[in-house]
């Protein structure tokens, strides 16, 4: 058996799931042009689903990915259909829409915590600060989530690529994102395309949360606390396409976990508690140096500069 540093596991699982969450946030942003302040709580929904399915009903862990996807998706649908669409049809300002997502976040947090209280009362199982690693399967002697989380992230991106580039529906969705009114005149049902992408984004958030629960200490507020990381990753990714989002999610997730460790090794363990500041700093640096995000990096230009620098 290969020895794998536990920090690598933390980093890979966290970064994979952060990239799924960032992907969802960016997808929503591309469709409705509003940053969703309640996106983190979709992950909390997935977390509580995983806890319920495993600790209370003793179902296999990976079976709960489906209900987590559906519940996260329905939460996102509720936000889009019941809150955002009425606002958009009334020409509400961007700020109003952002506040509406905050209001939705308040509701989600209330519901999740009420559920957590109810869950603890009913099943006598801890629902805050819970660890449910024991329900995970083992693949090749490794914890299953260590294999499945990155595999799921990569295959999601691949499937999305196929969907958006090879299917009629996906091309329609891209058209609806690029130019809604023109897509509408061409007979593409823009609203349906947006509804689908919101459902998908929420569902991916739910899946990400439920896999995170298999490794990290979960709580009904976990996702809400993750929100800054998601925003930072999305901004690093550039908020312009989903591939940038995934890259941003991976980059920031890895930097957050591995970078913290490296800083701890270099400067002493006192610095490791400052981990939550990494995404905030990453956000600031990106906005200052590369406001369009990773996607605007012209790799070829960088290579050229490096070569030139080398030859001189």
């Amino acid at each position: 058996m290969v020895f794998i540093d536990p920090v690598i596991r933390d980093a890979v699982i966290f970064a994979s799931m952060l990239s799924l969450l960032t992907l969802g946030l960016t997808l929503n942003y591309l469709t409705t042009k509003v940053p969703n302040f309640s996106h983190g709580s979709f992950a909390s929904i997935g977390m509580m689903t995983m806890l319920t399915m495993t600790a209370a009903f003793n179902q296999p862990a990976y079976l709960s990915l489906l209900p987590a996807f559906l519940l996260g998706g329905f939460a996102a649908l509720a936000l889009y259909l019941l809150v955002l669409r009425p606002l958009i049809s009334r020409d509400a300002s961007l700020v109003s829409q952002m506040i509406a997502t905050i209001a939705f976040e308040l509701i989600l947090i209330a519901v999740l915590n009420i559920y957590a209280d109810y869950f603890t009362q009913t099943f006598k199982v801890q629902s805050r600060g819970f660890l449910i690693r024991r329900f995970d399967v083992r693949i090749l002697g490794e914890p299953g989530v260590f294999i499945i989380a990155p595999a799921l992230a990569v295959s999601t991106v691949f499937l999305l690529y196929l969907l958006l580039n090879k299917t009629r529906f996906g091309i329609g969705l891209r058209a609806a994102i690029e130019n809604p009114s023109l897509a509408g005149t061409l007979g593409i049902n823009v609203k349906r395309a947006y509804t689908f992408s919101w459902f998908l984004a929420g569902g991916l958030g739910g899946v990400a949360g439920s896999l995170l629960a298999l490794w990290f200490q979960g709580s009904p507020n976990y996702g809400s606390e993750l929100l800054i990381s998601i925003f930072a990753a999305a901004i690093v990714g550039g908020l312009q396409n989903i591939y940038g989002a995934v890259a941003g999610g991976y980059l920031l997730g890895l930097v957050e976990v591995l970078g913290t460790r490296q800083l701890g090794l270099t400067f002493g363990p006192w610095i490791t508690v400052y981990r939550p500041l990494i995404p905030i700093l990453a956000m600031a640096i990106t906005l200052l140096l590369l406001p369009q995000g990773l996607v605007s990096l012209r790799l070829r230009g960088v290579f050229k500069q490096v070569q030139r620098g080398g030859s001189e």
Partner: protein
Amino acid sequence: MIDEQLIIFLSNVLAYVAIYLMVNVSLNFEYGFTGIPNFGKVLAVAGGAFVVGAVPGRILASQLNLFAGYRAVQDNPVLAECLSTLVQVKPKLMESIDYIEDNAVVVDCVRRVLVNDPLLSISLLVASVGLAALVGAGLGFIASYPSIRLREDYLAMTLLAMGEFLRQVGYLDRTLVGGTLGVAVPDPYGWLGVFRPYASTLIMLTVAVLFFLYVRAVTYSPAGRVLRAVRDSEMAAEVLGIDVVRVKQKVLVVSSMMAAVAGALWAFNSVAVIANTYDRFTWTFWPWVMVIIGGAGNNRGVLLGTLVFVILRQAILTYNYLLEPFIPFSIVWLDRLLFGIALIIVLIIRPQGIVPEKPTPAISFEKIRKMVQKS
């Protein structure tokens, strides 16, 4: 018994109305009048509170030579009395006292000194609040850096993260305000004895009213029309020769000062600073709820929104035992659920809030009437 509860309820309402009125007025100044969506309101509030948690206790203690330990302050009867028994329990206090480690001891000693010295107490209050205002202005200036460069959506995310930044630092760094445990704060109202809570509330209310009147005066003045011009159309404002960047910077600095003063007064009111209580829900989202429900860009609306929110929320919290039998879950989550739903309904049905913004006349109607009568 009921009366006692009613008094607690009313005094809570007054204190919260005062503190939130300060924060809301400053948020309304930024968002309602100037159009800066400040989702990091907590930044300045926490800044003010952290100043109070970190600075006055340290300065007073070092003035009293308290950090040098019991031996150094034996001659001072008040301090000797305060420390003499503790020293026997914890001999380390003989040689040195640490502000964070022995926070309870330090603040207790300082408090005993302050109780006998009203003048020192008052100057402590004024100086700390002044320092908090300065720090708030600095934070507002930092916050203005993204605000004048970024689009609304990016700005909202950045300011939210900045607000979170300070809380995280306060929570993670023990040396600032005690990290997870927090610190106690010297009490500048202690010399008032039983009237302490009333004095604190009165001061907060006074400051809140001053802020309210200040923003009202500004918004009725030509400067207020400048702010509205910036909010409604930046480009048009620029064409008219308004320096949009400067205006936004000034507004953020002034409103962050107000929010920091609010944070400082709140820290003195609760005689403690715990970093984690300065979270984005309490000091960013709730003010937004109040401003939007009341009516943004409108002073009376903000006052009304604050009153409605605080009274409802305090009623829920105070009389929770009356509601408990009807609600199958813990009452603490009810306010989020309730106000989340209320906010969405208001946004959809009445986006202008309870009291919509009215156009303000360039000169008051009184003056116009007089002018008409004269001619």
